[in-house]
Structures are given as C-alpha cells and as structure tokens.
C-alpha cells in the first residue's frame, strides 16, 4: 500500500522532538558537531542527485491505480543567512498550515493533485554548505528532512547570497511527472538579498558532486561545462517547467534592486514576514491554477486560512500582479488523470478509457515541456480595443 499524506499526528511527532531538542534542525546541527557532514537525504549530491516527483501507481490486480492523483511538485528554497537564519524554524512551524492550504482544506488549491514538497535552504558560497536540498516528499518526511538541514547563519557579508545553485538544481536536476503532461510545478525562493549572476563548475561539483554535469545530461538537459548558464538563463530555463516566484523580504539589503534584473517583476512578491509563507504560496498557486480568483482570494484567506481581513487584503495586493491562470491555460490542464483512475501499465501517462489513452507512448516524448515557453523577451505591441 502506498504512503499516506502528511497527517497532523505524524507532523507533531517530528515537531515535538525538534522542540524538545531546541531547534528544528537539531539533527543536522548534531551531525555537523560530530563531523559527519550533510545527511544523504538533504545532501544535494545524495540519492542520485536528481530529485524526482512521481505519481504513485498502486498495483491493483493486473492494472495500476493512481492512488492520490497526479504528483504536483512544490519546491521552496529558503535563505538561512544572517537575519534570515531562523527561516527553517518558521518553515517547520508553518508546515501543517502550508500543507493544509495546498492539499487538505475544503478549497485546497492543489486538492486534485498528489502534493509533493521539496524544501531547500541556501547559504553563501563562503559557507560550508551552499545548499541543502530534501527529497520530494508527501508525508512526515517533509518535516523529518528539515531536521537534517544545517542553516549556517553566515552569509559572509559580501553583498549577496548564492541561491542560484538551488535554482540550478530546480532547473536541471529535477524530474517531475507533472511536466510530462505539459503542466508546470511550483518553485519559490525566499530571500532578502541579491544573488550572484553566475555559477562556477567548482561550486556545482561541490554542491551536487563530481557527476553533476552527467546528471544534468541524464535528466535530458544540454548544459555546457565551458559555458555555464547565467543566473538569468537558469531562471529562464526553470520557468519552462515551473511557475517560479521570488518572495522578497525587504530588509534594505539590495534585493529589490537586483532581482528584477533576472526575473520578471510579475514574479517578484514582496512579503512582510516569512510567517506569511503558507498564505502567500497558497494564494499564488490558487491564482495560477485558476481555482482562486482575486475576487475569491480574500474569502479563501479569511475562511480557510483564518486570517484577518486586513492581512488577507495585504496578501491579495501583494500577489495581484502575478500571471493569473497561467497553469489553467496550459494544454492538458483539463485532461489530467484523476485520483483512482486505472492505468494499463506503469509508465503510461493516460489511464484506461481516457481520450488520450492511445497516445501513451507519444505523450512521453515531449518531456522537457518547452512547447509553450519561448526564450527571449520581445516587447509586445498592445492590441487596440477594437471599436466597432
């Protein structure tokens, strides 16, 4: 039988243990004290490097049942340098709320999917570990793997941090089933500082291991060692397979001036507090999926998220500029397999009886999801009103 989703009881076991130990990341800190390095589960080089988000097909007689719906990956990448160092504690504390809003409440924004979450934390290249990256999980392992992380609270005071290695992993070292349907996963980076505009091969090897470039190639991407992509290009490539957003905490550290140079402004959200994370993510995802509108968002935040009217209005204003409905306009959005659909064999995209069933082999060919995202940005001439 397949695994169950994150339950409050399962989360509480992990959270209580962390609380008793005095830190959400107590296991990671203990390992570090013992000189053991990152745990394999959160080491970006661990478990085959490529993070996989796979729909669970439960054997049922000679067929396979889609147990929880198509897997939908959500990755959150947290700055844990300097004043942002407490972010993992906050992320751990708000995890049940995040999961509820994505998967459980009556109007859960990803209710039709099997929600799988990756948590990453990033530091500065001068810190010991530039990146910690969990596996894609759906149950209490989300919280467990947070406890293995090691925020270094450093940052080096050098005018920026290094989330671009995490973005590189998201763009080139992630395999999400949702992309096979032409839809995109969700990706959030939370920071207050600028990033660096480049990655180095040495650091890529340091983060992802000596086989990093081979893994990129194995995952179906073409990246040249001699001409590594810039941060801007990494983000552009990430946007081909994920609805990616930058959540900016304004602390006067220069982030607001930097990030519009590498990601479009409609994907930069100012957040007042990392405590808002579950609500901001749910709002963005709900609007992108088309299950929420700006009209219904405030009601959702008040009724389902139990926020005050003023906070709900602030969050609504913060997210009002994003590309609303971007997921809903993608091909196959209305054709996705549903929970309990039966499949003829593993590897099939389309269940038995689906209008696309006969296309199972060919549907798997367009895996890199690039049919709808063109590189480069051309200034769009506005179309007139078309008065008659």
């Amino acid at each position, binding site marked *: 039988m397949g695994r169950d989703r994150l339950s409050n009881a399962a989360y509480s076991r992990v959270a209580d243990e962390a609380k008793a130990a005095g830190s959400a990341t107590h296991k990671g800190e203990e390992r570090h004290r013992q000189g053991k390095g990152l745990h394999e589960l959160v080491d970006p080089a661990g478990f085959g490097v490529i993070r996989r988000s796979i729909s669970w097909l439960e054997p049922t007689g000679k067929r396979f049942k889609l147990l929880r719906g198509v897997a939908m990956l959500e990755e959150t990448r947290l700055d844990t340098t300097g004043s942002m160092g407490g972010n993992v504690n906050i992320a751990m504390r708000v995890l049940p709320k995040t999961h509820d809003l994505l998967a459980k409440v009556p109007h859960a924004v990803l209710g039709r999917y099997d929600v799988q979450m990756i948590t990453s934390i990033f530091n500065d290249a001068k810190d010991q570990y530039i990146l910690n990256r969990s596996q894609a999980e759906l149950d209490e392992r989300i919280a467990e793997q947070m406890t293995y992380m090691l925020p270094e609270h450093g940052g080096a005071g050098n005018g920026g941090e290094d989330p671009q290695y995490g973005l590189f992993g998201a763009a080139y070292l992630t395999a999400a089933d949702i992309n096979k349907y032409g839809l995109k996963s969700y990706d959030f980076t939370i920071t207050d500082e600028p990033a660096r505009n480049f990655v180095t091969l040495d650091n890529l090897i340091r983060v992802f291991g000596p086989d990093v470039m081979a893994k990129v190639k194995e995952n179906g991407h073409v990246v040249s060692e001699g001409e590594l992509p810039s941060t801007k290009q990494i983000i552009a490539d990430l946007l081909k397979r994920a609805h990616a957003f930058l959540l900016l905490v304004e602390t006067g550290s220069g982030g607001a001036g930097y990030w519009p140079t590498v990601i479009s402004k409609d994907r930069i959200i100012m957040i007042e507090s990392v405590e808002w994370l579950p609500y901001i993510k749910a709002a963005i995802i709900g609007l992108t999926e088309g299950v929420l509108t700006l009209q219904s968002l405030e009601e959702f935040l008040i009724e389902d998220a139990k926020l005050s009217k003023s906070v709900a209005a602030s969050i609504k204003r913060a997210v009002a*500029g994003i590309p609303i*409905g971007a997921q809903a306009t993608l091909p196959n959005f209305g054709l996705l397999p549903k929970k309990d659909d039966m499949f003829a064999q593993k590897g099939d995209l389309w269940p038995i009886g689906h209008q696309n069933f006969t296309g199972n082999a060919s549907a798997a060919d367009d895996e890199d999801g690039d049919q709808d995202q063109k590189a480069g940005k051309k200034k769009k001439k506005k179309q007139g009103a078309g008065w008659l």
Partner: protein
Amino acid sequence: MKTGTAIRVKGPKGQMYDVGKQLAVNSRFNLYECTLEDGRVCLLKIAATKEQNGLLDREAYLLTTMMEEAEATEAEYVGKFPGEPPLNYHFLFPRVVDSFVSEEYEGRRVTVLSFFDIADELSDLAPLYHITTRERQRVDPKTSAWILGKLLKLLVFTHGQNITGQSLDGDNILIYHSDKDERHTVAICDWSEATIMPVGLSPDAMTEDIASIAQAVIVALSGDPDDETFAIPPHEEQLTDSRFADHLKRLAEGYEHDAAKAHAEFYTLIKKELWAKAGFHPYTSTRI
C-alpha cells in the same frame, strides 16, 4: 453573444443586465452596451475566452482598489484644503458595478463598468482617436492641453500605486465633451492589461506611459501617428510660441519618467507662462 437579440445576463445576486449593442471586440474581451435594472446604461465586458478571465479579474480588482484610493484621497484632500478644486481622480477611470464568472457563458468572466461619474449618456463618450479618424476633426492646442493635463494627473495617481501597463493610446482614451454643458474630461476605458508591481515601477515603464499619452495627444492635434519625429501641425493663433510643442514632443520622445514632475512642469508652462489669462477653455475642434 449575438447582437440584435434580447440577451440578458444574470449576475450572482440575481440582478439582470440587458445586453445591447456590441461596441468593441479584440482577443481579450467583447464589449457591449448594457442597461441596468434602473435604466442606466453601462458597459458590459465579457472575456473572449476563459483563458482571459484572469485579465478581467485583475482589472476589476485594480479598478475597485483605485476607486477606494481615489475616494479616500479626495476625502483627505478636501479636509486639508477646503475651498480648493477637488482632485477628481475617480473621473479618470470607470467604476466597477459588478464582476463575476458566468456559467451561462462557458465560465467566462463578465464585468459591468460605469462612467456615471463622468457622463449621463454613454454616447457622450468617444475614443480620442475617433476625433481625427471618424469625425475628421483636430482639437486645438488649448483643448489638447487640458487633455494632456488630465492624463498626466491620472499617471501621477496610478504610478503612485505602482500600477502600469494599461493601453494609453487614442483607442483607449475616452473623451467626454457635450453640447449640453461645458464639462469636459477624459478617462481610460480598458484596464485589462494593467498590472500592479509592488516592487515598484521601472523608469522605462513610467516613461512609456508618459510618452504614450503625449503621442495620443499629438495625434488628436492631427499629428501623423507614424511620424517618429512627433511633429505637431502648426496652429496660427495658439502655437506662436514653440514651448508648448517642444514640451509635448519631449514627453512623446520619452525624456520624462516622473509623472508628478511632468505634470507640475506642464501646468507651470500652461497656466503661468503661455495661457495665464485664458481661463476655462471649452472643447474646441476644427475640420482637418
């Protein structure tokens, strides 16, 4: 929706909107006249496809927020400066009467907009570019000055709220001028391409907005819309001093990104230097 047939659209609270003449069509929406239950005439906008729902959703949100801000700002201004002319920002964009997703129309969003604050009759409003293209008229420079002044005032307001992106060409600038009274004003009709940037607007975005309205005004003066030198046709009486044309051209060429500065400089030029003793100038146009 078919025109010429009696179509009624039902809102979520049971209110009925009688759909009339189709006014405009484009890839984002179809626009119709519609009559409310109390007989007043509004605009009814319906998304061209469900995929465009998000644009109309954001438009309704931005217009509602702008109206709340305009009314709050007006109340504060009147309190602080009694006796001063009102700001009247709310005249410059439509009011949202209703916005909902209509299951009756394939799940497309419907927004009902009014210009009640500006015009009693919808027919008193016309796109600015119709002056030259359909009426074959050109406005005189003093009329163009109040058009530009009001549009700059609008940009001061919208840029202050980090809102940009709405089309600002003559197709989307509605002008009210009526033989019944001396009121005249302008408003931006469609906001479906507008967005809000909480991180702040780029200088390029603000410059483009200012340049767009200046270019639209030059076309209303019968300037050539394809002329990239933005040459302004001469006017014997009102353009004897080149400063107005030079200023308008400078804005059209994209030399200014600060709407508040552009607005202040423009009014200093018009009210204190060029036409200080002019007083109220009614809408004036002449045959091209």
